[in-house]
């Protein structure tokens, strides 16, 4: 089956509504659920990776462009705040999304 549409008609569903293309969850840009986003204070971050481990979306990575500090992929970050809660140096602030 070709790439499944996010809004298929009932006649377009796979048998038993199975998902026949692996990795389809990536199409769900869960970032638009977010009401606040994590912001790292680099002066206090020890780059331990706890936030990377705890992120339930797996959307936090070390960013080599910013001296290897972690940052969140805002396409998928739901703003749950688990990273901020778990950070041993409390260097992550959850900042309200204004728009």
């Amino acid at each position, binding site marked *: 089956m070709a790439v499944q549409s996010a809004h298929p008609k009932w006649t377009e569903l796979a*048998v*038993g509504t199975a998902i026949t293309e692996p990795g389809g969850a990536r199409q769900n840009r869960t970032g638009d659920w977010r009401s606040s986003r994590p912001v790292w204070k680099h002066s206090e971050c020890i780059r331990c990776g706890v936030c990377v481990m705890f992120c339930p979306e797996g959307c936090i990575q070390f960013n080599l462009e910013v001296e290897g500090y972690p940052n969140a992929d805002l396409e998928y970050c739901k703003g749950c705040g688990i990273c901020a809660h778990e950070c041993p140096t409390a260097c992550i602030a959850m900042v309200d999304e204004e728009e």
Partner: protein
Amino acid sequence: METRVGKETSIAIADAVGLCDADIVAAYPITPQTHIVEHLSELVADGVLDAEFIPVESEHSAISVCCGTSATGARTFTATSSQGLALMHEILFIASALRLPIVMVVANRSLSGPISIWNDHSDIMAERDIGWVQIFAENAQEAQDLTIWAFRLAEDKRVSLPTIVNLDGFILTHMIEPVVVPDKTSVQKFLPIFEPVLRLDVDKPVSIGPVGIPDIYTECRQAQQHNLTQAYGPIVETLGEFAKHFGRQYLPVESYRTEDAEVLLLTMGALSETAMEAVDNRRSRGGRVGLVRLRLWRPFPFEDLYRAVSDIPVLGVMDRAISFGGPIGPVASEIKSAFYHRNHRPNIVEFVAGLGGRDVALADFEKMFDVLLETKETGKIPPPRMVGLRE
């Protein structure tokens, strides 16, 4: 070569599953289904049937195992009854939504309470909306034949749906009757090797049973409704194929002596056989009564019902279960709704009979015919009645 032998119906069903070369039997024993799975367990232990018999700790596990094995492409059978079927409840919806062609025999029995191991249809009527194909057998021959047919239908690629063969607990499961048993070669000719539409395969991964968010759930349900309704065509076709292979034709709705009848009674299951005798008796005394036997319950055979009932003025419906606090009989309420938009609507008289193993004798059918003929005379529909109730 086929053989004609005397067999207990439960044994005939188990042997039929053996003839169909089921790969997996996962079941939990419950009266009055016990002999079916007991005998299957024997067939597997004796090496007659090359299958995995999975003994489980509950019916919830039995049907869950069946979903898993069916999804891997194994021909899967289970059987249950009453409380066991009720315990399967939540998984039954999943089996049909995932289009898993499991075959299940249900030995119909009442639900508790009071605790009752005896026969009526309250177990299956509580599972009306599970999305399975549901059919009723009247005798041992039919129970065996429909079990074989059920695999063919369920596994038909246009259908790919779980299928229940209902038979009345004790009054059919424990009855010894003459049965014409087909040979294995002819069953294999009728029932091709199971090729699933979709299956769990490490080389071609799929996700079965994902979340359906509000954005898609409606479409899933429509697909399911369409699929089960459209199964009607393949059902009639495969029943015809069965007749070609084995010489016994089963129809979604059967009529018995409805020609020139003034009133009709509608029945389901094994009591239809008693009802036919009661029709003969009444007719021998000049009473123009006839019988309609509803064999296919889901998908509901509307057109067959309309043809069978034709322009009859009075139709009695004998239910074997109660819809508490609603229209009393679940079957009668469906029959009424089927006729609501028709130009010709018979006067429908509701009976509830044979609850929790209460015998329904010829004399009881005579009384039902009396009521129907009286309704024809007066044109007044009597309130629903419980046959044989002490009051």
